[in-house]
């Protein structure tokens, strides 16, 4: 079970039922449960989409695409059935927020899927959880079964005349499946090889039908928007970045944990106030603000607002909300090696730039960190990474390349300090760091 934390600056929307026993359906109903979906039924599809558009809700999985706009791409008429797919394959290193939603507020996810389905005219929704999240799958299965037993899902939901089925589905270990097209392949019982786009899932998705795919946190936000109103939600955040965000604070911090803060909250405050600053007397070296796929910020660059647009301006990305804080005992080359090892392991091998690029980067970084580096390796690494950018079906190639380029750009000296066969000068135990 994941531990809950709290801070006075938090604005609890998605997390407001955490720790309140809302896995129990009666308790959930006491806490305004299933009111949003009933309101959504009375609003009708167009009004739901407009409400979500005006709320400035943007995808919480990482890309930050406007949710209402995504829903509006689904054709009204379709010969093939339409689907809603909840992405709970949470695998981005540094990210552990969807876990809390499934654990503490499973019915909110169901309600979010229902509202999305009403908005686009889907009759089936799937909630896909990564295979490692077995205890959460069990919680979700029970929540779905309870909702069926009350008649909240199934035939003629809340007397609307609409039939809607919701199913849970388990993955079996694959980071790449968190990418929307690979996710659909996996749900269809195949290897999670990404699909070329266009066509986008909103037009040709699951089994060829129009499909809306949203992250679990995105969908769990939707009922709150329907009940609280678009204006309220939009005003919680910054312009074009509505609402709040679950930020997963990790690293050597005094109070790591998942905090729900308004969009646009200052990153420096997030580290020094909310998370209590660095622990063990360490100093801050850099911050990876949105999961391991995004560019690093140096200690001097963190006085920035945490929303999608501000982070782009700062040269990084808000990503999945995984704020990874590096301290001065972490060698940047070692860090780069671990990140690259991950992407090399997770690359499906379909696109050559990603398959070969991650492998060569891993080999180079392994040798480099062990003291076998030569000066031209540094530019070669950057060159390799730059040639992966934009040349793959899915964003895994970019995700592997972008961080490495940023580490070299911002911490070049640390790379250079590894040259001439010197042992890693940044670690207390360099020998233990060899992979």
């Amino acid at each position, binding site marked *: *079970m*994941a*531990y809950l934390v709290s801070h006075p600056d938090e604005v609890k929307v998605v997390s407001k039922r955490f720790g309140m026993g809302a896995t129990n359906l009666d308790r959930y109903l006491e806490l305004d449960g299933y009111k949003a979906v009933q309101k959504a039924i009375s609003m009708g599809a167009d009004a739901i989409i407009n409400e979500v558009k005006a709320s400035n809700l943007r995808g919480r999985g990482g890309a930050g695409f406007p949710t209402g706009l995504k829903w509006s791409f689904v054709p009204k008429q379709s010969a093939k*059935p339409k689907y809603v797919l909840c992405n709970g394959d*949470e*695998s981005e*290193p*540094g*990210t*552990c927020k*969807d*876990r809390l939603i499934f654990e503490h507020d499973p019915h909110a996810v169901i309600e979010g899927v229902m509202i999305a389905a009403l908005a686009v005219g889907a009759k089936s929704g799937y909630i896909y959880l990564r*295979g*490692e*999240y*077995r*205890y959460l799958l069990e919680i979700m299965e029970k929540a779905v079964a309870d909702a069926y037993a009350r008649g909240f899902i199934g035939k003629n939901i809340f007397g609307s005349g609409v039939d809607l*089925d919701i*199913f849970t*589905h*388990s*993955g*079996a*270990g*694959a*980071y790449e499946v968190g990418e929307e097209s690979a996710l659909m392949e*996996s*749900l*269809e*019982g*195949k*290897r*999670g090889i990404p699909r070329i786009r266009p066509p986008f899932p909103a037009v040709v998705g699951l*089994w060829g039908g129009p499909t809306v795919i949203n992250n679990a946190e995105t969908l769990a936000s939707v009922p709150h928007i329907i009940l609280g109103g678009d204006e309220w939600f939009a005003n919680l955040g910054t312009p074009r970045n509505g609402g709040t965000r679950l930020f*997963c*604070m*990790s*690293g*050597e911090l005094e109070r*790591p*944990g*998942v905090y729900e803060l308004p969009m646009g909250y200052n990153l420096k405050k997030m580290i020094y106030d909310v998370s209590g600053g660095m622990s063990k007397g360490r100093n801050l070296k850099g911050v*990876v603000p949105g999961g*391991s796929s995004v560019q690093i910020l140096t200690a001097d660059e963190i006085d920035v607002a945490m929303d999608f647009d501000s982070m782009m301006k700062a040269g990084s990305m808000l990503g999945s909300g*995984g704020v*990874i*804080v*590096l*301290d001065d005992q*972490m060698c940047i080359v*070692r*860090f780069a090696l*671990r*990140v690259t090892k*991950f992407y090399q*392991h*997770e690359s*499906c091998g379909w696109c050559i730039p990603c398959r070969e690029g991650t492998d060569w980067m891993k080999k180079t970084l392994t040798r480099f960190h062990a003291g076998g580096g030569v000066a031209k390796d540094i530019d070669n690494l950057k060159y390799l990474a730059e040639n992966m950018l934009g040349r793959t079906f899915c964003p895994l190639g970019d995700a592997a390349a972008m961080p490495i380029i940023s580490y070299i750009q911002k911490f070049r000296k640390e790379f250079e300090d590894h040259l001439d066969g010197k042992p890693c000068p940044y670690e207390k135990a360099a020998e*233990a*760091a060899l992979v």
Partner: protein
Amino acid sequence: MKFSDQLEQRFSTMVTHYPTKRSVLVPMLLYIQDEVGALTDEAIHEIAQRTELSDLEVRNVISYYSMLRTRPVGKYNFQVCTNVSCLLRGADDIFEHCKKKLGIGNKESTPDGLFLLEEVECIGACSWAPALMMNYEFHENLTPAKIDELIDGLKKKEEQ
């Protein structure tokens, strides 16, 4: 291979959830593995028949997913996360401690087949790092003492 009642029930329910039979494949493979211990040739053949796929097509899917295995694993599978958030909080030391305590290396099993040790990618415990997963069970904010306690407890349980 004949499905147990539990697997039979899983399969017959799940197959009604999707427009194609093969859509049950990934979760069903995991459920079979949990029960049988591994995806044996017989198990692969059985699920292939039921989903109207060739054995080879099923194997092709299995090889993509890191949790799916064709060879038996330990009774207690220690999967230690060493990805970045755990790395920052001493995952390397934790992994080394597990190796020493169990007397085995990465992806190895103890001779009695009880324990398997494996270094894995991010398990979603970043804010509670360092962490490991033992048969779907999260163990977080790890220290060497916590690992000793866990392993000694399991050994004791086995002796009884």
